[in-house]
């Protein structure tokens, strides 16, 4: 079941947080409400870490990660890097990269297996994505928009994309990503999906303007109906249910 929340009156919670299957990052806000909402849902399962990136609160827009690793822009300070390395589990590789498109979260959408990247991404970054995050990288636009990270929210079970994505594009992306995809909105009609929500395999958080309809679409496509627990063995089923073309 997805949770609705706000960061200091803003419903763009995807800007201020990053959620994966192994950890969660949140921005440091004026009140503790934001952090507490994540903690309440996740504390027993994965670490929730408060941080800034490059001195800013836009941790969601600037970083990209999954259970295997976390990539940070060159603007990240040494202290922030060290803090993250200390706070995250050992199996998560934290790396700062030199990439001119420094808003990594806006440029790259990923889950634990595949990533959709901005078409102008550096070759080195693509290789780092494959190495550190262990994903297959596809340079793709979403609804004609190069900022694939902004217009697509992805988990291992499903994905939500920009509302104007055509049926052909949806099919193509779904084949690439090997997950069911739905075109929809979040935060009462906002098209910037990843700015408005964060999701992992068992839970999601959306901005508080998200309507009940949008929430039910999210619950459906990401299969969050509450009757599954983390590590449900979905990964095992996945191989037999979905073909992969190598």
């Amino acid at each position, binding site marked *: 079941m997805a949770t609705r929340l706000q960061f200091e009156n803003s419903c763009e919670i995807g800007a201020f947080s990053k959620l994966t299957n192994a950890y969660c990052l949140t921005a440091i806000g004026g009140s503790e409400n934001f952090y507490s909402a994540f903690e309440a849902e996740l504390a027993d399962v994965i670490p929730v870490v408060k941080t800034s990136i490059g001195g800013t609160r836009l941790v969601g827009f600037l970083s990209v990660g999954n259970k295997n690793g976390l990539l940070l822009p060159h603007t990240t300070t040494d202290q922030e890097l060290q803090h993250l390395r200390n706070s995250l589990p050992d199996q998560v590789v934290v790396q700062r990269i030199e990439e001119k498109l420094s808003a990594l979260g806006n440029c790259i959408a990923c889950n634990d297996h595949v990533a959709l990247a901005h078409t102008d991404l550096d070759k080195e970054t693509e290789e780092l994505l494959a190495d550190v995050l262990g994903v297959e990288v596809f340079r793709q636009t979403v609804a004609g928009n190069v900022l694939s990270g902004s217009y697509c929210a992805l988990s291992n079970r499903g994905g939500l994309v920009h509302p104007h994505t055509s049926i052909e594009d949806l099919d193509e992306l779904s084949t690439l990503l090997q997950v069911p995809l739905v075109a929809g909105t979040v935060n*009462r009609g906002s098209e910037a999906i990843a700015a408005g929500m964060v999701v992992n395999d068992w839970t999601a958080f959306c901005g508080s*303007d998200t309507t009940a309809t949008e929430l039910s679409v999210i619950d459906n496509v990401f299969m969050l109906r509450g009757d599954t627990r983390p590590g449900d063995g979905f990964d095992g089923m996945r191989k037999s249910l979905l073909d992969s073309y190598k």
Partner: protein
Amino acid sequence: MPRRPRRHQRFKSWPITFSPFGRALARMGSISMPKRRSESIENNTPSSASNGFIKHPLDEKPEGSESSDGEFDGVVQADFAFFDPKPNDFHGVKTLLQTYLDVEEWDLSGFVDLILEQTTVGTVVKVEDDEDEGVFALVTALNLWRYREQRCIIKLKDFLLVKASQEKGIADQLRLLLGEQAHNVGLLVSQRVVNLPPQLLPPLYDSLFNEVSWATEDEPTEDLRNSFRFKHYVILSKIYKHKNAEQKRKLSDDSVEEIVYVKPEDEIFHKLSLWSFCFPLRTQQPAPHELKNYRAMGLIMAVEADKIPSFRQELGSLINET
């Protein structure tokens, strides 16, 4: 009763950042354009008709106007139009009201919904035919009694009272206005993008106060009609106060202003106000270079409704001077 036609203004470019359209404007320079002679008055699109209030934007569609993308001839033309608030304006209006209560966490979405539902009184300024439907300005008046049970209004009243608690004497007057006298008190909300051309202000305020007086006659029920018979307006706004206000008075240096008003009409409201006070703001916003000696403060004031005609007159002359 003759309806005053909406006026439509076209302006040179300026930095506005609330929409991709605005950002395109910001990237372009500005050059003077000779005024167009032809004007055509178009009868209105279905986007704004309610209770018999039709808005007539005067369209000035220059022929062959648009500069193509990438060409930097520096001329951008925009036709502003005044509209009734619509549910579609939600995101634009919410952006404008983001810092209305400083950093307070409150039901901002509920407040925006309230404003958008009140179509009889309230105006939203947008660009004609803009696909993004970016909202450049908003003005409305909300009766504090009519909406007294809304969560957002309760929080807003608490916010005002907390800020007033330091001011002896004013706190009691404010409490009266928000409580017993709330039947006739309107919260005047006016927010806009920073560089909105000031020539739009007189028609904008005219439209607000005209709608208020039309509403006292045209609303379907007696209660609603009475709810617009405002005797007082409460205004929450932002100003910049000189950091060395005390020193300033001693030196009586006239070249430096003690208070810089972000919105020009606030100066007139402040002068005509029944009472007013300032409070420090907690939002950290980098001040523009010219304002580095100033601190941003919130300003709360009450203005009697019978001062409004002189306000409208002074606003007209203030804008015409500049």
